[in-house]
């Protein structure tokens, strides 16, 4: 069994849409043996802090990114449909594209080129059953297949809004394995990708696509 580590870069505290204080989330994560980042759009000194951006066009996104990149440790973009997903992977400064649904090949290519990681959220799996869970697993299958072909990174997050939605490393690893991830892919999605995002030194804004 390899050493399993987990950095969960998408959690929310009571300061945004969650129900626990940031300090409580950090302490709970310590007990579970994981590290977390909090995406409240607030800069915390004691923990990695991220911001979720939304934008209608590239101009707006560039403006928001240039403001956010000096302040936050990492930047997430809220995707959803084809247009939003493509916009989200068009800037190298975006670290993670979230709520993507099934991405297309164009988005996959651009994500690989601009090193934007595509998110898989455990929260989606945890709170769905039968039909809706099947749909989410199909989306994950699609994104995993494209990741293998085009080489973009996948990142797994808990998407936790409460202490009860955090998961430890072993449990997350087993869920990913069950979803069809190979061991190295799971370890990369849980630790290598988030670690490289936190270490990444950003280049200047560069629009591609």
């Amino acid at each position, binding site marked *: 069994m390899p050493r399993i580590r987990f950095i969960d870069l998408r959690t929310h505290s009571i300061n945004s*849409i969650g*129900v626990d204080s940031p300090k*409580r989330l950090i*302490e709970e994560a310590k007990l579970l043996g994981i590290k977390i980042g909090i995406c409240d759009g607030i800069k915390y000194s004691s923990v990695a802090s991220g911001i979720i951006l939304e934008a209608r066009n590239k101009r707006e996104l560039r403006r928001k990114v240039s403001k956010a990149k000096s302040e936050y440790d990492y930047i997430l973009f809220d995707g959803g449909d084809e247009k939003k997903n493509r916009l989200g992977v068009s800037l190298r400064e975006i670290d993670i594209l979230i709520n993507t649904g099934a991405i297309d090949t164009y988005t996959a290519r651009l994500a690989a080129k601009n090193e934007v990681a595509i998110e898989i959220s455990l929260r989606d799996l945890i709170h769905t059953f039968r039909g809706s*869970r099947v749909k989410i697993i199909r989306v994950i299958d699609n994104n995993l297949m494209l990741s293998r072909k085009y080489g973009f990174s996948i990142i797994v997050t808990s998407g936790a809004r409460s*202490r*009860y939605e955090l998961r430890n490393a072993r449990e997350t690893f087993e869920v990913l*394995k069950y979803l069809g991830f190979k061991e190295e892919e799971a370890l990369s999605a849980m630790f290598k990708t988030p670690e490289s995002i936190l270490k990444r030194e950003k280049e200047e804004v560069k629009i591609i696509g």
Partner: protein
Amino acid sequence: MGKIPKSMREKKRYIAFKVRSDFKIKKEELSMAIWGNALSMLGEMKASKLNYWLIEYDEEKMLGILTCSHRMLSEMLACLALVSNVNNKMLSIVTLGVSGTLKALRRKFLKKDYPIREVSFKAKFRERDIKVVRSYNNFIDAEISEQEISERLGNMNMRYIGLIKEEIEDATFSEHGI
């Protein structure tokens, strides 16, 4: 029909776990949540190979032991990770450890006590009125009167916000036996 010889019997793995929830979770509810999730996730064929059994569960400490086939350990852990709700009560199951024997499991993982103290006193959290209801380790669970956050809790099938002791204002913990 005679018993299956020991060498041919299926090997088991014992899993120690802790249930975390704002509600008291009964043994039947927990068993139903785990089995329902396993059946839905694995399907009848694989669930039949799981050989799952909830051996014991302490409703006060919210600690328990379950067993499964050693071949299906990965699937069992994945199932436990995805349990989130029973009877509109949010819960999560944290795996404390896995062992091949009950004796080793109890020695390694269940010796620690995780006491949850039920208390009741009013305090302030960032100028909001709260009522502290539970305390364990350095953690505080509290009811909050602010409507937006109460609604958020309700939507998530929860009751309490989670804080740590140092964040509470206007409270001397020793007065309340914490």
